């Protein structure tokens, strides 16, 4: 029973942290930051939120490590590849325009 209570408290804590990070993100949108700084902060915070959801809500932290190794690293590599090549090209297209 106490184990279950601690689990529910863990879920509540994660939920509160997610809400706080979301509020920080919204506040960031109204603060005058340089675009690159704001973009990287938002991406880092979002990755942090996603990691919390996957680890605790989706329970991946409590699964076998082999499941994590099979699912996450190659997914991260694919996602990074998908962003890393098109985005600089998008900026290049903008420069090519007269």
């Amino acid at each position, binding site marked *: 029973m106490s184990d*279950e209570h601690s*689990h*529910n408290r863990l*879920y*509540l804590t994660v*939920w509160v942290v*997610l*809400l706080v990070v*979301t509020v920080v*993100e*919204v506040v*960031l*949108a*109204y603060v005058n*930051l340089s*675009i690159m700084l*704001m*973009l990287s902060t*938002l*991406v880092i*915070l*979002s990755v942090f*939120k*996603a990691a919390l*959801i*996957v680890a*605790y*809500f*989706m*329970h991946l932290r409590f*699964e*076998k490590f*082999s*499941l994590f190794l*099979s*699912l996450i690293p190659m*997914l991260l590599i*694919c*996602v990074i590849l*998908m*962003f890393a090549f*098109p*985005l600089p*090209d*998008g*900026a290049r*297209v*903008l420069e090519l*325009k007269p």
Partner: protein
Amino acid sequence: MAQQAHDASVSDWAGGRSPFAVGSKKLGMWLFILSDTLTFTALLVAYTYVRVANEGWPRPFEPSSIALASVMTFCLLSSSLTMVLAVAAAHRGDRATAAKWIWATIAGGLAFIVLHGYEWMQLIEHGVTPFGNPWGVPLFGATFFTLTGLHMTHVTAGVIYLAIVAQGFRGGRFDSEDVEVSGLYWHFVDLVWMFIFPLVYLLSNVI
């Protein structure tokens, strides 16, 4: 067999065992989530690409729609919380409580659908449609409505899925693993929104 299980020299991968120690339904849902992540990544990349490559990208999101999107984020995050509580109750074997929490999750999902639909209607009223907008950058509508539309489809499908699971689990047709698997799907839908919200809504405040 029991002796073999304790034999450290036999690898998990030698066959005859489940190396991930999860049920096949759960593994199947994880693999689906993997491929769906890549689909959504492709759409987010497409949105970001055309946004970077186009001058005069439309910024139709007023402070009120940023506030609305924040409320939608709150709805999804809270429905994720009720979903983990449902899964915890399901593992306890408390069918009535689990069904109650799943219905709370569905309520969060429905609130999201209604608010998002309202926001879409407002955009369409201002002439922002999938095929054109007052700023003359039709790519905005194409990428924005494809991205959020696919996400809305997932939320809608999730609400129907959860309703079926809630009824079936209450009636004893499904077991707790089915609830957990539906929970994985729901958290994934929440997770996707955690990227759409900052990259589409919040960033439109600055760039």
